[in-house]
């Protein structure tokens, strides 16, 4: 095995190239264990915290670490409150449920930690959500991760079945349609069945105002509403609106008070431990400082960086894991924390520290997220292999004035990510040509260390989208042109507003998936799925014999797509109808300025529309259409009937024909023939048909092309396709990225192809590769930087990088125990390589090998 010093010599067209590592100490490191040498925790404490981190990664749906199980406390106390509150207004019942959980649940305080708080009774556990999805809980009950006592858990789940979102929504749909969705081959299952959710909490109000101020505000609104109801002359057409508002405000007060007392329970606990049990005087002082912080915040406004970090974490736990489950870690962290960084690090007015103190805090935050477990359904554990959940924060970009938004907090966040090396949380960097070099250098440092993040989004494209959606605001209060700069990625790819109001609160607004590869397959078979479920999977759009022209094939696909996307979005909006009636979020509502102003629940109020849905496996469908057009309709080398026979035989006995279809032009090669068809396909159908739909918020729904881990799942459910793919093979692995190994002309040609799709898309994931030796050499930054400028000029929405050698991944497969710090980009998130199931690992190695051949001779194929 080579070390880095000898791996630096590469062949390039008859020359040898020496890429000396920029850091000379790396010269002695074997290339297949590079990533085990890159972590540099900033303190002994964060090193210890990482070593004992309780990861909750899942692989093929199973948790990897021993002793990880579901806890019972949240479901127990929620149910207890639900039974006790029967007859009360639903919003208030939800607040009482939250309060009961927060008041009674066991607190967790771990050694060495400075940021405190957990969402279950034991740091090896995670809570469950029977009110969201009884099916998901049922699966836990039948697994090794069942909450204990199991009888009690089973009784609780049985209690919730009639109350669950799924039971409430299903009656409004044809069971045949739902049966098709539950296949998860052409459409994702409806969100009312999975309970999967996403949200952008308005952290800003908690940090700036504090919850006591929110309570005062709600109480003032209640008093005003009650006064309004007694004002002469009574108007029954308006006056009755006050009832629901008063209920919502009251619920907000209950929720905020419960959160304050929960935080103060942490303060008491820390003080008790400090005064009675802790023997180390240094830790004793620290525990007393924790007690001070948790007593003041989130009740009061934050004054320093430690306050802000703790308040942010408590808010995260409530919004994402206790009040309701939601995936994600959406926040503009550098902007959010900057005032507190300034107070503590620059002005040293409160909680004084130096820059490295801020870095250590961020490292501790990353480790808290790394041990955060989510009680997701099995399907959602399977489709995020190697991860814990999706945690994605956003930094960089421009501020409301359009100036560079990077600051020293941005650098601290990136430096901490590089030093501590955890897969979570992932980072999105909003790239603008105004960004300062110093911060870009940190972005590059993370990229070249192979973290897979920051993934890069185009600053102006995101801002323009916020402005566009604002036009559809139902209450005329969408994002202003200044606020349009305040956007973050909600999850992997889609931008949405952050701030004190107008943020996305539920996945029924944006999220969910549709699978064009399968839709293309059934478009060639009258909507019937012969290869997987053996059932009618979509409308009857015509037998092959009736498809006489390419346009006929095109229109058949269009109809299948219309059917599927219509069903997907209508199930989301029906979910939302019931979410606002039975799954109110009083705490989230309390911290949103809009909900506070109008006395509305966060599920109900939509000021800034943000509709999106993810087409996954678009490129298999697109390449298939190109091959059909070329070989069947242009060249007439084969008939559709012959193609159908070959597909149904999985190409067996049709090898020659398969080579022709495989060699037909493919996306990502700057090929005019293929790119013209695929651009039209994307803009006219994938985006064009989707945006004809208007969702609950009054705006269009737009495609956010990505992959998650679904390209593996859906590939296995999709039969042979006319792009030359065999049945069951993985589908394309990312949004608008070329199919693995079919981009033959290098990275610049990929960018040229991708830049041709400009209309009707909200986000589109692009995977690119960088060579390890080049990126680690002193030339790495300048090469990357000039690449980024061009990417920006081509007006491409997104790009993310893998900088990992095939050698190292193979070594990690052989000896996983030695490669715990090897992180790879799967799709919209990063994962520890050894935590990914072998099938998934192999798809990633295959992807890599295409671009980064085992032989150095293939250096020319390296992508950047």
């Amino acid at each position, binding site marked *: 095995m080579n070390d880095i010093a000898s791996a630096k010599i590469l062949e*390039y*067209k008859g020359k*040898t190239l*020496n890429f000396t590592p920029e850091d000379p100490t790396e010269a002695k490191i074997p290339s297949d264990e590079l990533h085990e040498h890159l972590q540099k925790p900033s303190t002994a404490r964060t090193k210890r915290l990482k070593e004992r981190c309780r990861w909750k990664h899942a692989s093929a749906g199973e948790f990897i670490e021993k002793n990880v199980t579901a806890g019972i406390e949240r479901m127990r106390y929620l149910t207890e409150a639900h039974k006790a509150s029967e007859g009360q207004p639903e919003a208030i019942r939800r607040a009482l449920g939250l309060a009961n959980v927060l008041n009674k649940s066991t607190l967790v305080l771990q050694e060495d930690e400075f940021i405190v708080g957990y969402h279950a009774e034991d740091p090896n556990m995670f809570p469950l959500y029977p009110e969201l999805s009884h099916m998901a809980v049922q699966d836990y009950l039948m697994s090794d991760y069942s909450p204990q006592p199991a009888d009690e858990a089973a009784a609780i789940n049985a209690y919730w079945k009639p109350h669950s979102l799924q039971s409430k929504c299903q009656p409004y749909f044809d069971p045949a349609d739902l049966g098709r969705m539950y296949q998860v081959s052409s459409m994702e299952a409806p969100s009312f069945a999975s309970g999967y959710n996403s949200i952008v909490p308005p952290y800003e109000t908690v940090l700036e105002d504090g919850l006591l101020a929110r309570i005062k505000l709600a109480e003032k609104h209640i008093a005003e509403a009650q006064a309004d109801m007694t004002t002469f002359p009574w108007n029954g057409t308006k006056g009755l609106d006050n009832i629901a508002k008063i209920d919502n405000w009251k619920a907000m007060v209950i929720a905020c008070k419960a959160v304050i007392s929960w935080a103060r329970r942490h303060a008491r606990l820390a003080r008790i431990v400090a005064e009675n049990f802790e023997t180390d005087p240094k830790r004793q002082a620290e525990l007393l400082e924790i007690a001070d912080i948790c007593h003041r915040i989130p009740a009061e406004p934050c004054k320093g960086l430690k306050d802000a970090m703790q308040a942010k974490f408590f808010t995260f736990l409530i919004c994402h894991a206790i009040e309701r489950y939601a995936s994600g870690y959406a926040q503009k962290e550098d902007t959010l924390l900057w005032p507190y960084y300034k107070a503590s690090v620059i002005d040293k007015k409160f909680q004084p520290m130096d820059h490295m103190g801020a870095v250590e805090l961020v490292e501790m935050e990353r480790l808290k997220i790394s041990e955060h477990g989510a009680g997701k359904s099995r399907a959602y554990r399977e489709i995020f292999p190697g991860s814990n959940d999706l945690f994605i924060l956003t930094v960089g970009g421009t501020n409301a004035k359009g100036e560079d938004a990077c600051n020293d907090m941005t650098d601290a966040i990136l430096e901490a990510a590089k030093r501590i090396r955890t897969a979570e949380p992932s980072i999105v960097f909003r790239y603008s040509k105004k960004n300062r070099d110093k911060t870009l250098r940190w972005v590059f440092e993370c990229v070249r260390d192979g973290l897979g993040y920051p993934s890069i989004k185009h600053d102006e494209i995101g801002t323009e989208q916020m402005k566009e959606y604002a036009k559809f605001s139902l209450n005329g209060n969408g994002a202003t042109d200044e606020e349009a700069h305040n956007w973050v990625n909600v999850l992997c790819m889609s931008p949405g507003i952050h701030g004190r109001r107008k943020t996305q609160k539920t996945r029924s607004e944006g999220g969910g998936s549709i699978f064009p590869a399968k839709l293309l397959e059934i478009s060639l078979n009258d909507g019937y799925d012969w290869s997987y479920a053996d059932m009618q999977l979509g409308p009857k759009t015509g037998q092959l014999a009736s498809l006489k022209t390419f346009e006929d094939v095109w229109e058949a696909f269009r109809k299948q797509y219309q059917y599927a996307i219509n069903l997907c979005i209508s199930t989301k909006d029906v979910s939302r109808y019931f979410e606002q009636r039975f799954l109110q979020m009083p705490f989230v509502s309390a911290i949103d300025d809009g909900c506070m102003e109008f006395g509305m629940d966060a599920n109900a109020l939509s000021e800034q529309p943000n509709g999106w849905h993810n087409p996954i496996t678009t490129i298999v469908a697109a390449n298939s259409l190109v091959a059909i057009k070329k070989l069947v309709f242009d060249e007439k080398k084969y008939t559709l009937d012959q193609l159908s026979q070959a597909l149904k035989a999985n190409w067996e006995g049709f090898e020659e024909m398969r080579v022709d279809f495989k060699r037909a032009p493919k996306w990502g090669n*700057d090929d005019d023939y293929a790119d013209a068809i695929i651009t039209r396909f994307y803009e006219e159908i994938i985006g064009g048909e989707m945006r004809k739909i208007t969702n609950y918020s009054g705006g269009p729904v737009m495609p956010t092309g990505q992959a998650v881990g679904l390209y593996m799942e859906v590939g296995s459910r999709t039969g042979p396709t006319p792009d030359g793919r065999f049945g069951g093979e993985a589908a394309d692995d990312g949004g608008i990225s070329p199919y693995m190994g079919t981009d033959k002309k290098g990275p610049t040609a990929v960018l*040229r192809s991708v830049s041709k799709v400009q209309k009707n898309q909200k986000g589109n994931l692009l995977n690119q590769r960088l060579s390890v030796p080049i990126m680690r050499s002193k*030339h790495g930054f*300048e090469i990357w930087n000039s690449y980024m400028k061009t990417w920006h000029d081509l007006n491409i929405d997104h790009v993310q990088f893998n900088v990992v050698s095939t050698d190292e991944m193979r070594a990690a497969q052989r000896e996983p125990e030695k490669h715990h710090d090897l992180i790879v980009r799967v799709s919209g998130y990063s994962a520890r390589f050894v935590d990914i199931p072998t099938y998934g690992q192999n798809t990633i190695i295959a992807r890599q090998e295409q671009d980064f051949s085992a032989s150095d001779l293939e250096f020319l194929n390296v992508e950047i």
Partner: protein
Amino acid sequence: MKIPLVTEIQRFSLQDGPGIRTTIFLKGCPLRCPWCHNPETQDVRQEFYYYPSRCVGCGRCVAVCPAGTSRLVRNADGRTIVELDRTDCQRCMRCVAACLTDARTTVGQRMSVEEILREVLSDSLFYRNSGGGITISGGDPLFHPVFTLELARRIKERKVHVAIETSCFPKNREVIQPLLEFVDLFIVDLKSLNPKKHEEVVGWPLQPILDNIEHLIRSGANVRIHIPVIPGFNDSPQDFTDYISYLSRHAKQLEGVDILNYHTYGEGKYCSLGREKEYQYLGVEENPPDKVVPLVKGLKLAGIESVTIGGLVGITADRDETTRDAATRCIT
């Protein structure tokens, strides 16, 4: 105008001149350096690679060959594969077309000038942002002087930076003279300064090469020198001294010197082309990387500012406004 075959158009090239570049490799070279790493660019005619490891023994190539070059045999472990004898090969490439598993692939594509231009100009935006451009390489592009001149002229029309990689072999100066107008950078491979060794080993006299280099310098052209350091051929202290003393005379006029260590990666290509017998460096070991240190130091002491090992000149800022404008035009 006769258009040469293209072996490859390599986008995102980093070592053929400054910035991000696209390099065109033309097929054909009059020299026969015995260590050549790119044997597929020597012969001006089409050839094909054969990779036995990909062969599934289906026999389709046997059936289509008009000259009977291929036959099915059973190898030691009982697998049926194709045995190939290229002696009578007519280069019709029917076998390549027949192969379903890419065990045979063609070396040398026919492309029109328009196709070449479209491909090489696609990345103009990258050239602008990196100070890069297009490099015409080979083989030796001066083996096709009329075409190379025309291509350089057409690229220059678009205000894109043009480099040429050549050994400067032509004995007739009229070949090089017209290029001066269109070529921004000449990258000249200087294989030895010992006339006897040059002629005997490379098969070409040294003098016309030196004449051409000096003519380029006198004419004000930008010149980088490439020195391939080959074990046992030009890596003795005397060879290094010769290089240093010769190049020091032009130290201030040269753009720089790139030192390229010999390596063995070309070996596999000879085998795949069925020309393993031509490869005279089989078994020759690579020099340790520090072998060239005295040469680097000497060249720097002689006053040459830009000396690299490997040829990565790096990214420069925007070259100038005209390049920027041209690049913007290209993408719109």
